[in-house]
């Protein structure tokens, strides 16, 4: 249970908001639930709802609205490649395609070993460092970007970064 295992974290989170506005903690609590269970389970929605005084249905609405919450089990981590306009103008669509080929998946799929779910995402504010992607795992979200316009990230470099995540486990 979140309430027991993360007592002090939860107290710190709730203290950021006025005592009568516990609902404001729903988003940070959902990140905590994802950290604990890998995704937001139905039981976690009920737990989070109880902690911040709203119904499980209201929690489910929040989970469904925001793209960084997941209500089912995906890969161990999400590889989210920006193919939005500014990155696309600098070759990100091709980069994403070749990376998917190397991982043996189509966009949106999970690798056979269950390590990575690969997704295309909207602009991540890394337009001058295209191509770039982020990795979301239970510990948070980390950016991986090209070193400079002259040295764009290669697919080989991206694959090496992903190998690093597998070892980290």
């Amino acid at each position, binding site marked *: 249970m979140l309430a027991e295992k993360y007592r002090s974290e939860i107290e710190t989170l709730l203290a950021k908001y006025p005592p009568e506005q516990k609902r404001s903690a729903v988003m940070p609590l959902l990140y905590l639930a994802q950290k604990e269970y890998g995704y937001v389970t139905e039981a976690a929605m009920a737990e989070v709802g109880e902690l911040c005084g709203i119904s499980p249905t209201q929690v489910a609405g929040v989970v469904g609205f925001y793209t960084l919450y997941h209500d089912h089990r995906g890969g161990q981590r999400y590889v989210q490649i920006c193919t939005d*306009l500014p990155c696309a103008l600098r*070759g990100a669509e*091709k980069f994403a*395609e070749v990376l998917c080929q190397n991982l043996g998946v189509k966009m949106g799929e999970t690798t056979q070993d269950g390590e990575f779910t690969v997704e295309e995402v909207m602009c991540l504010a890394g337009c001058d460092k295209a191509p770039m992607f982020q990795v979301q795992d239970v510990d948070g979200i980390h950016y991986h970007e090209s070193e400079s316009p002259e040295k*764009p990230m290669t697919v080989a470099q991206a694959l090496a970064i992903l190998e690093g995540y597998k070892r980290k486990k």
Partner: protein
Amino acid sequence: MAEHILLRHRDIPDLHKLDVYLQHGGYEAFKKVVTTMTPQQVIDEVKASGLRGRGGAGFPTGLKWGFLSKDFPRYVTANSDESEPGTFKDREILEKNPHQFFEGVMICAFAAQANVAYNYMRGEFWDIAMRLDKVLAELRERGFLGKNLFGANYSLDIHNHLGAGAYICGEESALLESIEGKLGQPRLKPPFPADKGLYNKPTIVNNTETLTNVPMIIARGAAWYKTMGTEKSPGPKVFCLSGHVKNPGNYELPLGATFRHLIYELGGGPPSGLKVKAILTAGASSTVLTGGDDILDTPMDYESVAAKGGALGSASIIVLDESVDMAWLTLKTSRFFKHESCGKCTPCREGTYWMLNILERLNRHEAKKADVDLLNNVASQIAGKCLCPLGEFSVAPVLSSLKQFRADFDGHAKDAKKPAPAAARPAARPAPKAKEAAPAAD
């Protein structure tokens, strides 16, 4: 510009460290307002500086601060949601110059007599948020946040709040809903946040870059600030340059610098050597401007860009060279807005869906010329009917591209007289292959 005002970390190494920031006059402006000024004096100084909101709308900041209704408690919220395609300026400030930003938040909070402020960051800025949590802890420890600051009768705390992937939360009332733990859907206005904002209390929502201007305005004065930029658009601005240029990145320039200066002299122009076909000035939310001399020589300030039919917005300058097909461009922008529509109001929810549907068919050469008229029709029906600016933004690139580059669209129609152009997207940049460093930008 000789000296950076907003990107000061480019002149001063390690400015993100508190002690370095203090060595360079850090938190002196905050101390000055708390110990020697009244809130009204602070508001008057910001008003006199002519500072305008850097998030996109360009609304006069001091005026916004002066609108708060008399109710208490009050809140200040920094908008660090930065999600507009082509915008990456607030990120650099948060990463490299966080103290100047937080000092801006503090001065704003004092002016509003708010005792709590929130910094709302997009969820993807996770690593930045972890660092900024430590920065805030250090500020509390060192007495820059807390009770009775500098021995005066003023208390303040600041908290970071992470979003979770929703462009719409950059709209101020959606941002407030999100902090309240609800879906990030815009509120019907009025009432405006200055009257009923966070928790139904008077609230100021300011963009991160806007707030980062404030400490220098207090430290050096409004008259100094007005020596930069133009009369109606004073001060420095961070321009985010991306797309077809040799040197993409953030450039701090006075408002009123020309597109040519930014795109060619600083950006190095398109690496392909092709001419600039079109410019987006406000990210995906832009009315597309053509790349002609008339536009290139236009000063980048709020009035001058508006006079050309565009909007400076957040100054996210995306450069498109002549290889870009505008039917593809609008497919990309429409895909973005369809994905990010919050679904609350019908014209936006349904309209972005149908614009994308037509553009997908058109880009696959499955649509007819009549569908291009239909696209124009759908976009025109969305315009002016949406609850918030997102829907309006979604039609700006579509309608302006149709008007100025109609042939790009008609060329894809299966009943077009000429065969469809070979390039349905920008001329292929060499794709970076595995184990091979292919330059993407040349």
